[in-house]
């Protein structure tokens, strides 16, 4: 490493940069329905890609928000480092997909929660159930799913709050974070899930857009090498930009960053080449979430 190095990258284990998900899945024995090592990200077909990108209301990131050149991104990352501007600070409820292939919904749940916490504050954080979406977008516990399917689900149907005592006391329907076979509570789809929907997704098509969206305060969701992760920060190693993601595996894994609930050892980083892989397939930035009526008086 040479030149400026983001403080959070000082001394990290480089094994967590461009981490090899395929090897990790092989080592863990986690495979999809076809026996392919994966944590749940499956590449969309061309038709699926076109369907998700062509949805009404979907905007291309470059047409909707500021995009910076790589050089500008490098300058801006230094400012964000100095000012504490990264969105990984908003993590209150860390997800863990365990041995299921629900990474796409864990990543989108992370993105949803972070955006919720930006809009309404960490004190209003609500843990969301990835399985409440994955269960309807996958063939099996290990089949995996596509990012396009998840952004559609979060826009049109919504996630349910995690089944925990706090949420049970507050909402009519909740759902566990994991457990393919868990049953859904009656009327979940009409009463509670619509309260937790994404409002604005942006289709991210280049590494510059990916970095810019994170600098501009959005989380970016993308998949590579059989896994999908939520990216919520950037770092610099000289002139190389690294994109931080929050892992949806059990803690500890990866390097440690300071979050709203203290330091969490759950982060990895992807280089430009990995980011380009993700945007070439299916990269999305979450712009905003709906404000349901129950949030009007908080």
């Amino acid at each position, binding site marked *: 490493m040479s030149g400026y190095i983001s403080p959070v990258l000082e001394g990290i284990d480089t094994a967590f940069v461009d981490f090899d998900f395929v090897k990790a899945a092989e080592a863990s024995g986690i495979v999809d329905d076809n026996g392919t090592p994966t944590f749940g990200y499956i590449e969309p077909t061309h038709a699926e890609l076109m369907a998700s990108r062509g949805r009404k209301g979907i905007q291309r990131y470059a047409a909707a*928000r500021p995009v910076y050149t790589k050089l500008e991104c490098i300058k801006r990352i230094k400012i964000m480092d100095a000012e504490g*501007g990264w969105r990984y600070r908003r993590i209150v409820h860390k997800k863990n997909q365990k041995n299921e292939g629900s990474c796409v919904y864990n990543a989108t749940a992370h993105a949803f929660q972070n955006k919720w916490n930006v809009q309404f*504050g960490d004190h209003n954080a609500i843990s969301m159930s990835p399985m409440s979406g994955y269960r309807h977008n996958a063939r099996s516990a290990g089949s995996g799913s596509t990012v396009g399917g998840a952004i559609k689900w979060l826009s049109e149907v919504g996630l349910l709050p995690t089944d925990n005592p706090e949420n049970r006391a507050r909402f009519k329907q909740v759902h566990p974070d994991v457990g393919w076979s868990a049953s859904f509570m009656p009327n979940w789809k009409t009463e509670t899930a619509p*309260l937790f929907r994404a409002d604005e997704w942006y289709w991210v098509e280049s590494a510059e857009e990916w970095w810019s969206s994170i600098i501009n305060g959005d989380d970016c969701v993308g998949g590579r090498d059989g896994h999908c992760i939520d990216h919520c920060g950037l770092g610099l190693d000289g002139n190389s930009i690294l994109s931080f993601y929050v892992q949806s595996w059990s803690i500890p894994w990866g390097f440690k960053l300071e979050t709203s609930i203290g330091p969490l050892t759950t982060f990895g980083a992807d280089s430009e080449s990995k980011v380009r892989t993700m945007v070439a397939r299916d990269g999305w930035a979450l712009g905003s979430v709906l*404000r349901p009526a129950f949030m009007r008086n908080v």
Partner: protein
Amino acid sequence: MRAFLISCVLAACASGHAADTVIYYGPNGEVLANGRYTRVTISWVNGQPVMSQQVVLDVGGGVVPPGPPLPPVPPVSDLDAKIVALIAQVNDPDKPVTSAKLAETYRFVAALGEAGSVTDVAKLRESAERVSALYLGRKDKAIIWQPFTAGMASLTAPMDFAGVLVAYKAAETRLLSLQPPDPPQPPPLPPVTSAAKVLILIPPELPDQELSLLTNQSRNDKAWSKKILILNSDAKDENKSPDPLVTKALAYLSGRPLPRILLLDAAGSFVADDAVPATWEAAKAYLTQKGVSP
């Protein structure tokens, strides 16, 4: 001329006076009238005219013969009111500055008259016109102040020498009474409000790095974060209808530009709004001034 000089010398010798006899001639050979002759110098310092005068010749005594009777000088109070009215007719953004220059004009010309440097009332008025034009300098200023200078000329036209001096001194006093503008004052502190909550309203196309930093820092600040709501201006509720609070905010703003920081009282009514400060530190200072506490 020669005969006149000889006769003067002879007269002096015959009278037995020991003092010298001095006679001053003008450029055409005429004997100069008694009085003090003043040299007036107008120099320029930093683009501003600066006048100075010096008595360079004092010719014997002598009495100015009285002229025809002139109309009485108006009472000072009446004269003063007329001068005030003339000044009021001038619409000059630099009025206090220009009036100070004109005050110097009238002070200077009055001093010439009092010193005996100018003894003719017509020349006194003429001096006032010339010197005021010089002090006003720019043509536009001469035009702007024309209601006053022309008014003063009309006012003093029927006056005798003493009356004109009184008028010029009164003009000087009045012109000086227009104080220069106060130095720029810092903007007034925003008034304290009954605000209890804060809404940061962002146009959906504008979440840039600066806003991202500010909103994230506001959330990192746990003491303040509970007071703050951050929404896009196209935010929607669970029915995907426009968010009622945002709709209300946009109506309240009446087109004022976004992003905007809006303050709400405990009842949810908007009590103030402003442009979003550049940094979270500045935003906190603004909120504190407005009476919002973390």
